C-alpha cells in the first residue's frame, strides 16, 4: 500500500498540471479538460483518504464530484459551441470584446 504522502504528492502534481494548463493553454477545449484534471486530483485525495480511514463518506463525495464534473462539461461545451457559431474560433485570446 503506497504511503499517504505519495498520494498527496501525486494528486498535487495532477492538480498543478491542471492549473498550469488552464493558465497557459489558449484553446477553450483544452482549458476545459485541464479544469477537469483539477477536479480529478481532488478525487484522488478523497478516495485515498477515505480508504485510509475505512469510511465511505469520502468515496461517496468523489462519486458526486464525477457527476458534477459531467454537468460542468455539458454547460462548458454548450457555451463553447455557442461562441464558435458567433465567432468561428475557440481561441481565448481572440475573445476580447469586453474590457476596461
Amino acid at each position, binding site marked *: 500500500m503506497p504511503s499517504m504522502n505519495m498520494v*498527496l504528492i501525486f494528486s498535487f502534481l495532477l*492538480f498543478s498540471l491542471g492549473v498550469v494548463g488552464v493558465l497557459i493553454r489558449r484553446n477553450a477545449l483544452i482549458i*476545459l479538460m485541464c479544469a477537469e484534471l483539477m477536479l480529478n486530483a481532488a478525487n484522488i485525495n478523497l478516495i485515498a483518504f477515505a480508504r485510509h480511514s475505512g469510511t465511505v463518506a*469520502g468515496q461517496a463525495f468523489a462519486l458526486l464530484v464525477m457527476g458534477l464534473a459531467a*454537468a460542468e462539461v455539458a*454547460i462548458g461545451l454548450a457555451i463553447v459551441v455557442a461562441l464558435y457559431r458567433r465567432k468561428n474560433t475557440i481561441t481565448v485570446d481572440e*475573445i476580447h*470584446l469586453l474590457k476596461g
Partner: protein
Amino acid sequence: MPFAQSLLESLGRDLPYLYGPLFLVFAATLMIWPGDLLVGRTNKRAWSYVAFLVLAAGGAMALYAPLGQGFSGMFRVDGLTKGFQFLSVLAGLITIVLSQPQLNALREQTVEYYALILFSTAGMMLLVGATDLVSMYFSLELMALCIYVLVAYLRHQERSVEAGMKYFMLGAFSSGILLYGISLLFAATGGLTTNLAELNEKLALATPNHTLLVFAGVLMVLVGFAFKVAAVPFHMWSPDAYEGAPTPITAFMSMAPKAAALGAFVRVFGTGFHGVSGEWMLPISFLAGASMVLGNVAALRQQSLKRLLAYSSIAHVGYMLLGVMSADAQAGGQAIWLYMLTYLLMQSGAFAILIHLQGKGEGERIDDFRGLARRRPVLAFAMLVCLLSLAGIPPLVGFFSKFYLFKLAIEQGHITLTVLALLTSAVAAFYYLNVVATMYFKEAPEGELKPMGSGLALILTVTCALILVGTLFGPKLLDWTAKITLG
C-alpha cells in the same frame, strides 16, 4: 428491510428543513416539462406569473421551516439561514419583475430562463444552510452552473456569449481550487470528516506535520470563495460578466449569489475554520483591503453604468469581508445580512432605472442620464436616493448599514482596515455623485422618453419607499436584524 426502513424514517424526520428548495427544484423541472405543453412556450406573460408565484411559494415554505439540524449534520436551519434565504428569494423575485421589458423584446423562449433562476435560487437556499463542506460545495455549484447559462442566455449576441464564456472558465477554475482545498482538509483530518463543527475541533488539534496541509487547504477554500464573491485579486471575471450579461441577470448576479456566498463564507470561516483563524486572518484582510481600494478606484474611470456598478459591488464586498473577519460569527453574519438587505434595495432601484432607460439597445452609458432631472424629475429623484444611499451618505439607510459593519470591525480590533474603508467610502461618494451631477446639471438630449412599465415602476417605488422609511428607523435597524436572524 431495516436499512430501507431507517432511511425512510430519517427522511421523514429531516425533509421538512428542505421543503422550500425542494419545492423550487421540482416546480422548475415540471415547468420545463410537461409545463410547456400546458401553458405554451410562447406565452411569455403567463410564464412570468408562474415563475413569480412558484418562487414566492418556495420562499414562504423556507420561512416557515422548523429550526434544527438534519441530514447527518449536513444542513442546518437557524435564523441566519432563514435570513439569507429570504434575501436570495427576494433578489430572485425582483429579477423576475426586472426581466419583463427585455424578455418581451426578445425572440428567445423564456421557460428555461425562469427555470434556471429557480434552480439557482434553490442552490442558494441550500448553500446558506450548509454545515458540511460536501453540501456547501454542491449547492455552490448548483447556484453557479445555472448562472453561467443565464449570463450567456442571449446566444445571438456576441457579448453575452463572451461574458458567459469568461465567467464559466474562471468559475470552473475556481471551483477546482475550492474542491482541492476541501480534499486537503479532508486529508488533514485523516479522511474522517468534512462536517464544519467536527472539522473545527480536528483542525485545531492537527499534528505539526499536518499544519502545511491545513494551511494550504484553508487558503484554497478562501481563494474559491473569493472568486465567487469577486474579491480582488480574484475579481477579473466580474466587470466583463456584468457588462455582457443581460441587464436583469447583471442585477441578479450582483445581489443573490453574493448574498448567498457571503452567508456561506461567514458560516464556513466563522464556525468551521474558527479554531485556525490565525491561518486565514491575514490573507482575508488583504483581500478586503485590496477590494475596497481597487473596486472604488477602478469605478472612477468607468463610462458604462453597468461596469461602474460592477466595480462598486467589488468594493462593497470588500466592506462585507470585514464582517466575515469578525471573531463572533453571529454578529458578523447579522451585520452582513443588514448590509446585504439595504444593498439589495438600492441596487434593484438603480437597476430598474437602468433597464428602463436602456430599452432594447445598449444605452447603459452614464451619458444617457444627461438632463434626466429635467425630463423625468421623479425618476431622477429616485435614482438620487438610490445612489446617495449606495454611497453611504447620512441619513439614508445605506449609512446605517455601513455604520454597523464598521462599528463591529472596530470592536473586533481591525482599526487599520476600518480607516481604509472610511477613506475609500469617500472615493465612492465621488463617482456616485458624478452620476447625480450628470442627471441634474447637463443638457438633456432631444427625444421623448417612453413611460415606465408598471413592473419596473412598482419595484422602484417600493425600494425607494423602503430606503426612506429605513432612514427614519435607522438606529433601530440592528436590533430588528438581531431579532430576525436569531430566529
